[in-house]
């Protein structure tokens, strides 16, 4: 069973030249790639409300909903209040929000996530001043009840991936996971999985920017037992979603 744990649907801002994709296109791509279910979130110019309405009870494909946490969104609190029991994860994107995850404006959402054990996916990138994995590790200490998934395996660059994996293993950040979305360097993914353990790695494609069929072979090629690959493809995310309270 394959769950793509990181997909976007909707319209991007200028950051991706207003590129737009629809729910129907996402379903087609997921199904044709052999994906059984997907954790979806909006893009930066699509509202939570709009995407949630189109996906949560979709009859054609199984979506789990990941709420986009932009503290400047005036609709966000109402959206969360009305739908919190049907939201599976939160997504925080420090680079697009131009603020670190440690920014005080995120605190109430992190507290909400912790009180309900909602996993939080955090974009980790190369912009170290804002989107470094190190800020996520700080948050994981302050909010030990939140399962934190560090997207792009902590930075989408071999040096950052390895550094992040080693730090997670060395300091035993038990509530921290690595998401594989958009990481191409299979050799380093393999090493990172060996360092943190397959139970800490979650498959994602970063669709509509990437395709699941680009990244599924990467997990399949890992030098680990088949049961570990199953965990990465679906077991770990099922466990996090199921453990929400």
């Amino acid at each position, binding site marked *: 069973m394959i769950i793509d744990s990181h997909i976007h649907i909707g319209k991007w801002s200028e950051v991706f030249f207003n590129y737009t994709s629809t729910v129907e296109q996402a379903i087609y791509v997921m199904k044709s790639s052999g994906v059984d279910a997907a954790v979806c979130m909006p893009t930066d110019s699509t509202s939570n409300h709009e995407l949630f309405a189109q996906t949560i009870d979709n009859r054609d494909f199984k979506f789990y909903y990941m709420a986009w946490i932009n503290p400047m969104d005036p609709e966000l609190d109402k959206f969360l209040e009305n739908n919190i*029991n049907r939201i*599976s994860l939160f997504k925080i994107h420090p680079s697009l929000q131009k603020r670190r995850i440690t920014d005080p404006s995120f605190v109430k959402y992190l507290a909400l996530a912790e009180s309900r054990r909602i996993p939080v996916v955090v974009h980790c990138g190369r912009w170290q001043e804002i989107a470094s994995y190190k800020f996520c590790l700080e948050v994981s200490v302050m909010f030990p009840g939140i399962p934190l998934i560090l997207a792009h395996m902590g930075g989408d660059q071999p040096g950052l991936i390895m550094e992040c994996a080693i730090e997670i293993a060395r300091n035993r950040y038990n509530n921290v996971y690595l998401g594989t979305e958009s990481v191409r360097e299979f050799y380093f993914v393999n090493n990172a999985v060996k360092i943190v353990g397959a139970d800490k790695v979650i498959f994602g494609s970063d669709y509509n920017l990437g395709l699941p069929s680009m990244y599924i072979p990467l997990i399949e090629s890992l030098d680990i037992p088949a049961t570990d690959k199953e965990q990465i493809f679906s*077991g770990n995310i*099922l466990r996090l979603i*199921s453990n929400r309270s």
Partner: protein
Amino acid sequence: MNRLIKVLHIAPQNFAGMPMDFVNMQNANHYKARLVTMYPNTLKFPEDICLNLNSHTGKYAKKWRDSKIDAKVSGLKYYKSKNPIEALYFKLRDLKNTPKIFSAINHYDLFDYDIYHFDGGMDLFRDLRFARKIKSLGKKIVCCYFGSDLRTRGIFKDLDEISDLNLTVEFDHTQLYPGINYLFFPFDVHQYKIPIRNNSKIKIIHSPTNRLFKGTDKIIEVIREVEAVRQIEFVLVENMDREEVLKIKSTCDLAIDQVGGIAGGSGYGKNSIENLSMGIPTFVEFSSGYLDFLKENPFIACNINNLKERLLQLIDNEQLRRAKINEGRAWAEKYHSYRSVNDKLDLLYYDNKII
């Protein structure tokens, strides 16, 4: 995989609509599920594939079944025939039912499923030949228990041995069968809305299916005492069509489920979750073990000795009533909604190598 996983639920009856709730939940979550029942239910719950097998429902049959109930259930009980006559009866019954069951297997392609849920832990045949056959085909078997099946009838040892996953929706089963997996029963919370109510007197509903189990006579006595000191309207609903009950319920401010019944603190059922979904704070008696298990819950836990006091608290405090309305609805969504229960079941499937 990328195709819908097919799940066949097999149950003696659609008891209280529970097996069908599982089917509906799974169909809403991208499984392809169907329900085969052996006998039609008598309470107008929906049917899917009903085999309409003959069952003995007369007073002697009931007496025979009742005679097999142990007053004290202290551990896991395995089913065995009470005597050679009963064993012969079930052999003959299997023989008689065989053509009808075989015809349904062919007609509905019943071997063409991936997962088989034996709801109530019972096969189509008493000698378990259908379960053994599907196991030999490499299919996955789940046994799900709903009440007296595990508690008083006992489980079928041979079926238990080939089961890949055992589930229960009853708290006391977890004490009788160590290691069984508890699931909150699924309920379609979102089909209910919280109506606006403007009653001049607080309206309290009690709708027993069995007066002894629900403590109805004792509850009525308490209600009489409350009526002497407060302006309330008490509605006792019995033997009424479900639609009618729902209509009445939607006008009520408070509900009493079971308090002071002979089962003593056996907790809540579908009726209570329906109440919470409609924003009706509900009084229920729990055993202390049950309350420990349900650490967070919105019910007004009470017993027959403090029911009056708890009722007065709620009648006199509108703010508390409002808080309980919201708390109850949110709790029902959180634990009993199709999405929430299905997420838990998916993980159990995964952990037991069913998906």
